[in-house]
Structure formats: C-alpha cells, structure tokens
C-alpha cells in the first residue's frame, strides 16, 4: 500500500480498517514522557532539548523526536485560566484551580493530592465553594490559531488533549478524598449527586469553549475517568450505572453533538465489566488498555469489543517497560500487535505516561519495534 499521511493512517485505523502501518502516539496527558525519564532519554540520545512541561511533570515532546519516531498525532490543549496561578510553596506543594493541594515529597517523582477541600463538605457547603470560572478566557487563548496552523500546514492527526479529570476521579482523588467519597457513594447519595451536578455544569461549560475553539479542526478528543484498580473495578457496575454513568452521558453526549471527532476515553485499571456501558455512551476509543491489570487480556478485549472500539495504548508500563530488557520490550510490542492490530482499530503507545525508572533504551526499542512489526498486513 502506498504510504498514507499520518492523519489518513489514524482515521483509517479509527474506521476499523487496516492502514499502511499501525498509527503511533506520544504526547497526551496520558501518553507522554514524564520529566525524569525524559532527562535520561535526552542524555542517551545526546540531545540538548529544553524540557518543557505541561500540567505537572508531563513533557511536551520535541517535534524532532516525534518526527524521528514516526508519531502520527499532534496535540492541542487548553491553557491554564488567567485567574489562577500555580504557586509552589516552601513545602513543595501547590493548590490547583479546583482547590486541591498537590505535594511532591522529597524522594518522590510524583505530585499527589494531599489537601482535599471538600473532605468534610455538606450539600450546603457546595453552594459556597469557590468553584473555577469556566468562562475564563485564558483557557482558549490562541488555541484556534494553533489548531488551524496544524490543520493547514501539517498532515498529522490532531488530538484535543483531556481538559480536566473525570467527574468520578476528580471527586475521590482530589476534591473529597477517598474516605469521604467512597463512604458517601453508599451512605450519602444526595451529596454525591449534588457534587456531580456542580462539577458537570462547569465541565460542560469549559468543554463548550474548548469545542467552539477547536471542535471542527480535531480528529480525536480525549476525556478521562479512571474506574478500575489493579484487581478489579473500583466500584460495582451497578453503582456506576446508578450514580456515575448519567453524568458521563451528559458530558459525552454534549461532546458528540458539538464535534465530529472520535471520543477517546482514558480509563485506567481493570475495567472490562464497564466496557459495554462505555460503548453505549458513545466511546469510540479506549485507553490505556492496562494489560497488567486483572481481566484485561488484550486478545479477549479485541475479540469481544474490537468491532466497536479502537484500542489506544497496550504496551505494558508496569512490568515490561521499567524492568524488561530491550529485547523483552520488542517481544511485548509484537505480542500486543498480534493481539490488537488485525483489522485496524489499534493505535500503539505505552500504557499511560512513560514513568521514572524506564530505561531510555526501552523507549527507543518500543517505537523501533512498532515500526518494524507494525506494517499491514500484520505478519507475526
């Protein structure tokens, strides 16, 4: 087959057809390199690129590297609002625009939420809470121009990166903290619904501005909400359907109405029991396909859902990327290609961001192997 442009390649895969080769991704808030392994990679490649981060320690991957590795995606993302400034305090913590304090303790490469502003909140407190301003013009400043430039002067697939955490994870990870939120899911459902109502109104409004800026220029839009742990779902499918799904439906149907882009859901962990619901809600692409979690065998997922879902991710970041040899990484790439690539519907990248401790040789080998074995028709 004659080589396709990166955009044609991705769109073909998303239509569940086989392009010339498997599309490759690197660079979203759930598929980039973290700052620490990026420094290792720069040393290994002998490059002096400036490290530019977004969100927390998420690296904006240099264009030179994206071209070298054959990455088919390019990203646009919302900017921080004007009314909020990230201020790092002496104890190495900061408060995000939703009011959650994040801290990176000495010795840890990660920012973790430590201050949950709604830890003891009641429904009445939600009314008085200083919520972010969804209409802050800073978020979309210059965004349309960036997306237009990408659309007009390149042939990459344009992906709108995730603009906020999902409603479920924002509630338990950040705003309420796990103890309050998981308790309330059973014992105080009116609070959970009142909180979700508040968050979803803001999220839909932010999304409205985002899609007004780039909705007609993008191929894929990312949303996220982690529903799984290592050993199984975090909540029962019944609880999901009762409390969380109606809110996912509100946001995702709004997105579907306002952009032709495919809907990409980032959902970590062991999530197989939720997948039929997610498909019903219009999810086109599932990420990160956490193959090391329980009941997440890619072959089974492809057989069960491959006709309706594109799998985006799949290369194991928990065991193979940090602890494997480059040859084992190559074997992992071959295995995932064999399981997920036939018939299209597969975009290859690591399961979540490349983490501290992943040797640069393994990152390089992952993308080399993807190009080596990713030509259609697949022969592995």
């Amino acid at each position, binding site marked *: 087959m004659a080589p396709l442009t990166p955009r044609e390649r991705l769109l073909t895969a998303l239509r569940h057809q086989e392009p010339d080769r498997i599309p490759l991704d690197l660079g979203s808030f759930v598929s980039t390199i973290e700052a620490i392994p990026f420094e290792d990679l720069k040393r290994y490649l002998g490059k002096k690129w400036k490290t530019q981060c977004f969100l927390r320690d998420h690296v904006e991957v240099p264009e030179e590297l994206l071209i070298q590795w054959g990455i088919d995606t390019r990203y646009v993302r919302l900017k921080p609002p004007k009314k909020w400034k990230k201020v790092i305090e002496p104890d190495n913590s900061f408060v995000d625009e939703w009011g959650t304090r994040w801290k990176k303790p000495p010795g840890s490469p990660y920012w973790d939420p430590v201050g949950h502003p709604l830890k003891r909140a009641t429904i009445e407190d939600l009314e008085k809470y200083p919520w972010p301003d969804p209409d802050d013009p800073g978020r979309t400043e210059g965004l349309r121009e960036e997306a237009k430039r990408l659309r007009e002067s390149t042939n990459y697939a344009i992906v709108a990166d995730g603009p906020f955490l999902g409603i479920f994870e924002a509630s338990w990870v950040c705003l309420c903290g796990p103890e309050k939120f998981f308790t309330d899911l059973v014992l105080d459902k009116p609070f959970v619904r009142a909180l979700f109502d508040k968050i979803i109104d803001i999220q839909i409004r932010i999304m409205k501005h985002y899609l007004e800026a780039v909705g007609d220029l993008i191929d894929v839009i990312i949303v996220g909400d982690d529903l799984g742990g290592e050993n*199984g779902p975090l909540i029962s499918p019944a609880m999901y359907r009762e409390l969380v799904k109606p809110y996912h439906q509100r946001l995702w149907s709004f997105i579907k109405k306002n952009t032709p882009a495919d809907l990409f859901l980032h959902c970590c962990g062991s999530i197989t029991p939720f997948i039929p619901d997610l498909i019903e809600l219009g999810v086109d692409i599932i990420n990160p396909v956490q193959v090391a979690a329980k009941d997440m065998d890619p072959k089974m997922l492809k057989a069960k859902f491959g006709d309706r879902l594109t799998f985006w991710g799949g290369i194991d970041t928990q065991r193979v990327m940090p602890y494997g040899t480059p040859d084992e990484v190559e074997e992992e790439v071959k295995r995932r290609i064999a399981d997920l690539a036939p018939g299209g519907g597969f975009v290859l990248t690591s399961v979540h961001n490349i983490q501290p401790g992943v040797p640069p040789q393994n990152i390089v080998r992952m993308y080399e192997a993807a190009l080596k074995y990713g030509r259609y028709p697949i022969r592995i």
Partner: protein
Amino acid sequence: MTRWDDLVQAIQEGDFQGTETLVSAMLKEGIAPEAIIQEGIVKALNIVGKKFSEGECFIPEMLIAAKASQKGLEMLKPALKKTSYKERASVVIATVQGDLHDIGKNIVAMTLEAGGYRVVDLGVDVPPDKVVDTLQTEKASILALSCLITTTMEAMASTVKAVSRSGLQGKTKIMIGGPPTTEEFARKIGADFRGKDAYEALLQANRWSGAGL
C-alpha cells in the same frame, strides 16, 4: 435476645447508628464484649473481606463495613477495659517514605483494628527510622507497610532493612501491600508476607498471632 445476624448485617451495610444501637443493647443484656467482637464484628468483616477478595464487592462496601466496625469497637472499649481482654497483638502500619497514598493502608488499619489488633497508624511518607522507633516504643510484633508507586518500593526495601539492622528481625513479622508489590518482591526485600487486600492482611496477622478467625 442476641441479634447476631442483625449486627453482622448492620456492619455490612455501613449502618453506623444501627451498629451502635445493637452493640449498646447487647452490652446492656450482659453479653461479653469479647463475644460481640468475635460473633459480630469479626464475622461481618470476614464476610465482606471475603467478598472483596473475590470481586463480589468493592472499595465503598469494604470501607463502610470497616468504618461501622470501628464505631462498634469504640462502643466496646470502655467495657473491654473492665475485662481481661487483650488485643491479639500490636501492629505498626505506615505508607513508606516518599509515598502519600493511604486509602488501602487505612482500610487495612481499620480492618486489623476491628479484628482485634492494637493498631498504631503512622500515616504516610514515613521515614524508616520512625518506623523502627515506633516498633520499639510500642513493642509491636507486626509491621504493615504500604506503597502505591513503583519508585517508593525502594523505600519499602530500606524500611525493611532498617528493621532488620535494628535487631528487631525475628521479633517483628513484616507484611507489605500495594499494587506494585509482589510475593517475589516481598521475599527479595526480606518481608514475611505480601497481602493483596485487607482481608488477606487480617488472615495473615491471625496466623502469626495464633488466633483463629
């Protein structure tokens, strides 16, 4: 009338008020607090813990049962002081240095406490020397360590090493948990056990302390 089934059900459902009312009524009836722990609280936790381990219930159900157990236990504490009841053993529990995650550790702490252990919870981001000091001052025979992120597994290894260097090895049994840990890792760093959830932690603590469930 002893309503064991009602108490077991109240705990499973996270019915805090119901748990307290039933425990208080049972005490008034003259039922021994040890029996209330054994026949009510431990039994309920056993049921929920097993369901959680087998994927039949999830974090919210496990958490509310652990919390209800704690409520029941609080009601029993004054009565227990008047008996010869002794906690099965003292457990020091901590999330290791550099790691700030605590939901799993908290559920384990609550479950062990409700299961009859004295639990000293050091919180998160705990340096090895603090763990060692606390094991010594609290005369604890079990150490439970948690981590969530791969990079803090190293801190878990140094904590276990610090315990062994301090001469406490042999006197202290060490259990570890958290998603990146494995049984192989536990063996490698010299921990005695790796549990996948709170229920496994309780079963193992019971094996060590010679108590049946």
